[in-house]
């Protein structure tokens, strides 16, 4: 008898050692997330994947699946709160979608669409954040960084480089680069590094490729992230 968990009344088998997120993804159940990526050590910071496990809130990307768990995922309460958390990310940074190359391929935006987020609800911080355009092939716009650390993890775990880190505390956090000058061009980042391609928002962009796919024909323009996100992650898995 294989072990199972239940997500929104659906029985889902899992293997020992899998997280709730892994079990759900394998079974085609979408749990909203931003800082999670199947290829990297779970981080558990964005809190969008919070699900209700036997009455308690748990981060699906870090919490182990345990036989018999009764999990709620697609409830109005959870999605209302996930929307507020997404709105927090939108007012914390400066996410001006109409001017962003990533628009339509952006997971932050896609999660907003998925949650039917129509406004930013909270007062904007309008924090001043710096850009780094020094690298010949890669542009960093800190205005769009949501501190998911995927670039940090990709650079360390896949590229073996440690190009990125999150520095500072609390609301004053910022993405920093590993070079004496502090500039991206002086780091070891290469355009083919996984870290350069992993950003869920438009904070890390590959130069001169922004509009190869026109707006209106992009990943989330017509299909929601619950479908395309899972497909993508399955194909990423190989």
């Amino acid at each position, binding site marked *: 008898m294989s072990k199972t968990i239940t997500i929104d009344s659906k029985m889902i088998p899992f293997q020992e050692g899998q997280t709730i997120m892994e079990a759900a993804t394998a079974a085609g159940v979408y749990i909203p997330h931003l800082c999670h990526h199947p290829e990297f050590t779970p981080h558990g910071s964005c809190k969008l994947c919070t699900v209700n496990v036997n009455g308690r809130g748990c981060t699906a990307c870090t919490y182990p699946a345990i036989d018999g768990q009764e999990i709620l995922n697609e409830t109005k309460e959870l999605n209302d709160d996930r929307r507020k958390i997404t709105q927090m990310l*939108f007012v914390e940074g*400066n*996410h*001006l*979608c*109409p*001017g*962003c190359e990533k*628009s*339509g391929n952006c997971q932050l*935006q896609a999660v*907003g*669409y*998925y949650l*039917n*987020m*129509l*406004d*930013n609800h909270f*007062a*904007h911080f*309008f924090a*001043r*954040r710096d850009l780094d355009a020094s690298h010949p092939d890669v542009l960093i716009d800190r205005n769009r960084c949501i501190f998911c650390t995927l670039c940090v993890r990709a650079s360390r775990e896949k590229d073996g480089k440690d190009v990125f880190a999150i520095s500072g505390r609390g609301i004053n956090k910022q993405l920093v680069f590993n070079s004496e000058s502090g500039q991206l061009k002086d780091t070891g980042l290469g355009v083919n590094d996984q870290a350069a391609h992993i950003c869920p928002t438009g904070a890390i962009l590959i130069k001169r490729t922004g509009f190869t796919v026109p*707006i209106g024909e992009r990943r989330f*323009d*017509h299909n*929601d992230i619950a479908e395309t996100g899972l497909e993508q992650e399955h194909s990423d898995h190989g």
Partner: protein
Amino acid sequence: MANKTRVATVSLAGCFGCHMSLLDIDERMLQLAELIEFDRSPLTDIEHCTNCDIGLIEGGVCNSENVHVLREFRKNCKILVAVGACAINGGLPSLRNFIPLEECLAEAYLDGIGVENPQIPSDPELPLLLNKVYPIHEVVKIDYFLPGCPPSADVFWKFLTDLLDGREPSLPYELVHYD
């Protein structure tokens, strides 16, 4: 004709792109015209709005005049709607929020390239700039939000027909865009 729904529209710190998009509902405008009439709007040249049912606001709040106009709309419209990215989060005009206003004004009127007779305009007729461009929901209470840059014609159509038919307005996935 007296019981037509009265709609007022205005563009604050916006580009009128949202208004253009509203016009993009094309022939459906005729259908709409059966049900609504425009009060204050760039489409009518009425200067002040009075007793409206719906107010559509495009653009964020960048100066003192925007504040007065927004308040006039709030006062006279039963339902106030933030239309488009700029009204919702300041949009592209809010890019100036990251540069101190002193620098913006100095660049434009005092020491920018090609400035002749440098001076900051000072005339009671001219509205003063706010230190930042603000989303309209940070200045008055807003009832509904229509995202997009601009929101598509279908968004306007869906939203207005929902309201006119007495339904709670809602936008399906296809119609929610931030760009």
